[in-house]
């Protein structure tokens, strides 16, 4: 699965730590999602989508 998390985060001028704080996870987890090492759970994906006010499918894409 690919995602646009890094691009969306950069558009808000947020560091990984800032985004992690907004989502209630660790910075390492944000880095793992951005680098494609980890696919987030559905609840976390929904939290990300709500935070960026976008549908999930516009953030995450199935390969």
């Amino acid at each position: 699965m690919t995602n646009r998390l890094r691009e969306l985060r950069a558009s808000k001028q947020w560091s990984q730590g800032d985004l992690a704080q907004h989502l209630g996870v660790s910075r390492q987890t944000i880095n793992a999602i951005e680098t494609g090492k980890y696919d987030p759970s559905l609840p976390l994906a929904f939290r990300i989508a709500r935070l960026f006010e976008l549908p999930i499918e516009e953030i995450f894409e199935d390969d």
Partner: protein
Amino acid sequence: MLSSRTTKRLGAALVLFAPILHYAIPGASWIRTSAAVAAGLLMIFFAKEAADDERVRDLKLKALNAAFSTSFALTLIVNWFLNRDFDSTRDFDGATGILRSISAFDLIILTMVAALALFHYWRYQDGAPDAGSPAMPPA
């Protein structure tokens, strides 16, 4: 209920001091020492992390999975060496033959050491930026 930090410290104390006491007390049993070390390692591994999110739980499960398979295979290899002179026709005949094996506590120690090492290595890798990724915005 103990906090996660206290649980980890208590676990670390067991891992550190049980072997020291083992060598300080003449005739101390390794079974008791290994039970204390195994308990300490279990406390360290299963205590909550400072940032305990879904990725941490995912990595811990993966680390435990890989560590158990590896340490079980290692146990079989060690046991094979311990019993390489075993002859079932000779050794079972006189009721003197007992297949030797490392203890369950030793298996837990092997598993927990491997699981902790894998977990922290993967967690370190999670924090490392991707080589091809663009620079991070300032914090």
